C-alpha cells in the first residue's frame, strides 16, 4: 500500500525528517509514535501529498507520490492535527464541499453523505453550523471529511488531541470501525491511542525511525532489560540492609533508594532480565516484608521511553504519566 524509501525533509538547513524507509501493507493499521517534534506530522504530510520530500521516494498503491500526486491524493483521506473546518458552513454543506473537491460527483456525494454521517455519529448535527459544534463533534467532522470519498488510505494526525476521556473512547471505537474499510496510519504521542488501535508501531525520534514492530515484539525487549520498583520493610527499619540484599541478587545491575514509599522503603532496581520473582523470594528469605513489587512502567511506555529518549529527544518533552514514573524515566535516561 505505502512504500517509502530514504525519505527526508529539510526546512531550510533544519532536518525535520529522515532519511526514513518503511512499508505499510494493505489493510494494516499502523501507529506513528514519537515525542513532539519527532517528525510525525512532517511524515504524514508527505504521505498525504501536502509536502514534497527533499529526497527519497514515496509510493501509494504503486503510484509515485512525487510525480503523480493527484492520483495519490484521490486514494488518501487526511485529518491533520487541526481539522480543516470552515466554521461558516453547515456540516452537510462542508462534507459535500469536501467530497466534491476530492472528485466525487454531486450524486455520489448525496448518496455517500448519510453513510458517513452515520459512521461518524453526525446525524443529529448535520444541519448545524460547524462553528457552533463542540470540539468533539468538530473532530468527528474532521474524520468525516477524510473518509467522505471512501479513500483506501486514511491518515489521522493526533485524532484524539484535545478530546475529553469520553470522547477519546468514542474516537477510538470509531477508528476501530474504520479499520474494516481502510488502511490506517495514525500518529500520536499518547501510547494508549496507538497501542489500542494499531496492529503495528513505528517509533520516531529526532526525525528517524528508531524502533518498529508489533507491541509484543517491542515489549519483548523490555522483559529482557526490566526495571522494577519495590517497596519493602525490614523489622529493624534499616533500608541499608535491604539495599545490600537487593544488590546481591543475580541479574541486578543497580539499586537506587527512593525514600519512604508505600509505608516502607522504596527502591528502583535496574536489572538484566525479569528479576521480580527473585527479588520477592530473596526478600522473604531474609525476613523482609514485601509491600509492593511492580515493573517500573507499562511495557510499551518503557519501550517508548528507552528508544525515544535514547535517540536524543529531550526528556523534558515527555509528558510524565504519573510522578512515580518520572524517576524511572530519568533512570532510564541515565542508563541510556
Amino acid at each position, binding site marked *: 500500500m505505502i512504500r517509502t524509501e530514504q525519505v527526508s525533509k529539510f*526546512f531550510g538547513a533544519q532536518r525535520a525528517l529522515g532519511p526514513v524507509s518503511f512499508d505499510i501493507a494493505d489493510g494494516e493499521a499502523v501507529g506513528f509514535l514519537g515525542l513532539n517534534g519527532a517528525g510525525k506530522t512532517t511524515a504524514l504530510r508527505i504521505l498525504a501529498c501536502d509536502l514534497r520530500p527533499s529526497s527519497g521516494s514515496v509510493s501509494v498503491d504503486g503510484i509515485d507520490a512525487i510525480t503523480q500526486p493527484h492520483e495519490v491524493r484521490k486514494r488518501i483521506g487526511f485529518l*491533520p492535527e487541526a481539522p*480543516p473546518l470552515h466554521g461558516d*458552513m453547515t456540516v452537510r454543506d462542508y462534507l459535500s464541499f469536501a467530497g466534491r*473537491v476530492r472528485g466525487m460527483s454531486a450524486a455520489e456525494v448525496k448518496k455517500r453523505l448519510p453513510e458517513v454521517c452515520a459512521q461518524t455519529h453526525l446525524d443529529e448535527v448535520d444541519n448545524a453550523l460547524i462553528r457552533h459544534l463542540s470540539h468533539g463533534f468538530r473532530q468527528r467532522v474532521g474524520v468525516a471529511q477524510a473518509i467522505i470519498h471512501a479513500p483506501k488510505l486514511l491518515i489521522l494526525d493526533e485524532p484524539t488531541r484535545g478530546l475529553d476521556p469520553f470522547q477519546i473512547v468514542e474516537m477510538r471505537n470509531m477508528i476501530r470501525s474504520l479499520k474494516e474499510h481502510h488502511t490506517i496510519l495514525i500518529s500520536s504521542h499518547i501510547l494508549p491511542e496507538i497501542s489500542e488501535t494499531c496492529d503495528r508501531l513505528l517509533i520516531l525520534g529526532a526525525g528517524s525511525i528508531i524502533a518498529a514492530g508489533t507491541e509484543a515484539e517491542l515489549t519483548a525487549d523490555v522483559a529482557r532489560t526490566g526495571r522494577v520498583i519495590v517497596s519493602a520493610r525490614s523489622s529493624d527499619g534499616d533500608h541499608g540492609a535491604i539495599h545490600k540484599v537487593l544488590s546481591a541478587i543475580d541479574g541486578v545491575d543497580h539499586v537506587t533508594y527512593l525514600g519512604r514509599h508505600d509505608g516502607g522503603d522504596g527502591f528502583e532496581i535496574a536489572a538484566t532480565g525479569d528479576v521480580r520473582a527473585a527479588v520477592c523470594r530473596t526478600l522473604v528469605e531474609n525476613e523482609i516484608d514485601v509491600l509492593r513489587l511492580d515493573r517500573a512502567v507499562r511495557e510499551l511506555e518503557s519501550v517508548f521511553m528507552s528508544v525515544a529518549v535514547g535517540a536524543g529527544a529531550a526528556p523534558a518533552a515527555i509528558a510524565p504519566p504519573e510522578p512515580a514514573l518520572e524517576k524511572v524515566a530519568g533512570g532510564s535516561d541515565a542508563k541510556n
Partner: protein
Amino acid sequence: MQKISIIFRRELAAYLRSPIGYVVAAVLLLFDGVLFQARALSAGEQLSADILHAFFYYTSGVTMIAAVVLSIRLVAEERQQGTLVLLTTSPVRDVEIVLGKFLAAFLFLAGVTLASVYMPLLILVHGKISFSQVAVGYTGLLLLGSTCLAMGMFASTLTRYQLIAAAVGLCLVGGMLVLYYLAQVVDPPLKGVIENMDLFARRFDGFMTGILNLADVVFYLALTYFFLLLSVKTLEAKRWQ
C-alpha cells in the same frame, strides 16, 4: 474547470456569509457616494463629462483599496485557520485553487462596484454623456479592480498573517501607483519604461474620459495574469519549502 467552479462557489458563499463581505460592500458604496457628493458635485457648475471623470477618479481609489481588502483573506486566512490543507491534500491543482478564489472575489467586487452605477446614471439622465462613456469607465474599474485583486491574492499567498498580506498588497499597489511620478524624475529610455508600467495616472485616464484603449486593456489583463501566475507559483513553492 469543475474544481474551479466548486471552489468559486464556496468562496463566493463565504463572502456572502461573512461580515467582511458586507463591511467592504457598505464602506465602498458609502465612500463612493460621499466622494461623489462632496467632490464631484460640489465644484459648482461643470460639464457632465468632467463630473463623470471625477466620479471614476474617486471610485477607482475606493475600488483599489476594496480589492486589496477582499483579496488578502483568500489564502492567508485559510492558511492561518488550517483549512487550506483540505485543498492541498485533495486532487486539486494550485492553478484551480487560485482561479476559483480569484473569480469569486472578482465577481463579488464587480457586483459591489456595479451597485454604484446609479450615480453615473444620474449624470446620464441629467447631463450630456453617452452610455458608452459609462460602460467604458466601468470596464476600466473592473480591470483595475481585477489587477489589484490579483496583487492582493499574490500577497495573500506569501504569508499566513492577513495584516502582513494587507501591508504587502497595499505596498504593491501603492508602488505601482507612484511609478508615474517616478518616471517624471528619470531620463529616457528608463522614463518610458517606468511610465508604461504605471498602474493608474497614465493607464486609467482613458477609461475616465470614455476612451477604450486596447493597450490599456491588455496592460491590466497582463498584470492580472502575471500576479495570478505568481500566486500559483508561490503555492507550489510552499510545498517545496
